[in-house]
């Protein structure tokens, strides 16, 4: 069940990224929804699910971009694994701590992704620190909102159900 959920989340993120790309990737303010999903899954489910989610999501993103297949996969696998370890070793339940994790994960992803491309001399990046910073903040904000909604919505549904049950009685 969890596997199906993760696959659906990756597909939804890729579809949303490609559909809303022009609105969420403007100049220095960009959001990588696929990375947000990888970090969220890694924080919730641990390092093994995190690294597998990173691999699948990264490869899908690579295949849809004009880049080398595997570079995004490698970067997201590393991020998924390390965030999973952080999530299992420390209590990352407060919005601020999650914000910091998303921020650090985006910076690490950018360093590995851009670093590999530059090291292999495959692509030039005009990405400045401001652009990476903008993306990190964007991902962190979206990530924290997704987490808060994920925790808030089931509670609301549960409260409504119990209210209805009380009325029926």
């Amino acid at each position, binding site marked *: 069940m969890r596997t199906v959920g993760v696959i659906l989340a990756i*597909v939804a993120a*890729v*579809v949303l*990224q*490609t*559909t*809303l*790309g*022009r609105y*969420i*990737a*403007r*100049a*220095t303010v*960009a*959001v*990588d929804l*696929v990375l947000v999903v990888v970090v969220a899954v890694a924080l919730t489910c*641990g*390092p*093994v699910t995190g*690294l*597998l989610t990173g*691999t699948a999501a990264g*490869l*899908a*993103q*690579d*295949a*849809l*971009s*004009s*880049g*080398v*297949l*595997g*570079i*995004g*996969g*490698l970067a997201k*696998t*590393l991020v998924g*694994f390390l965030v*999973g370890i952080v999530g299992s070793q420390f209590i990352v339940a407060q919005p601020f701590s999650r914000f910091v994790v998303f921020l650090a994960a985006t910076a690490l992803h950018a360093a590995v*992704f*851009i670093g*590999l491309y530059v090291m*292999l001399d*495959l*692509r*030039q*990046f*005009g*990405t*400045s620190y401001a*652009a990476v910073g903008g*993306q990190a903040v964007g991902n962190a904000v979206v990530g924290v909102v997704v987490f808060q909604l994920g925790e808030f919505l089931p509670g609301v549904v549960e409260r409504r159900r119990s209210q209805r049950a009380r009325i029926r009685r």
Partner: protein
Amino acid sequence: MAILDLRQRAGYLFIAVMLGHVLLISAQVNARTGVPILEAFTFGLFAEIQRVVSRGSSSVSEIWTGYIGLRRVNAENEHLRQQLAVALIDLQQQRALADQSRGLARLLELHDQPALKTTAAAIIADAAAPDFRTVTIDKGDADGVRPDMAVIAPAGVVGRVAVASGRAAKVQLLIDRNAAAGAIVGRSRAQGVVVGGGADERLSMEYVSETADIVVGDAVMTSGIDAIYPKGFVIGTVEAVDKNGPSYRRIVVRPAVDFHALEDVLIVLTPAARQAEGSRE
């Protein structure tokens, strides 16, 4: 003990997956002859999902913009926009023809330029990663679209076809960091190469001669030397010129196309090389 075992297994799995990635990257870096099969397959599969999502979102958008209060105004606006698009394309072709005939007349060798064969396509998706500037269009191999065909819009040059699958194609935008086009300044005929600027969405004109005359506001057009883009199509306008003595240090070109507002494009089905051959015959 169980936790230690799980951690060890996770570690082994991590190493195995990372090694797999390294092998995958190495295989492509050593032999980048064509499009990897996995890329073509995944792209084709996702293009279908993107087509359905795009159709759904555009239907909702059409209902909203076309029927809620603005029914007649929107239809009229759409009609005028189409007329303008046709006129702009025509203007660009006429400008290209005029430029070419002026040059050829100088050599007393007047030839006709073959008409461009184009097909219209709608953009159904954007890039999957923010670091790449690509879009997916709803025309592919089945419609005669092939890699390295030029993609244009009424305002100017959009990019080139990077990958074509059965019913969709990936277009690398001119603002992508790895994109380039042969360019010529309309006023002074100075030549150079326009390259994408990546995140800042500006183009930069490089390999320009020291003796070239370029000023802010000059129109930059395709030169046709790259065998991808037809000659004479608008790329943009010179926005800034940074000189270091006689040599140009930096020439910034503002693209004519608003890449965020793109919805429909035209694919030039006649390769530029064939156009050149046609005009030589």
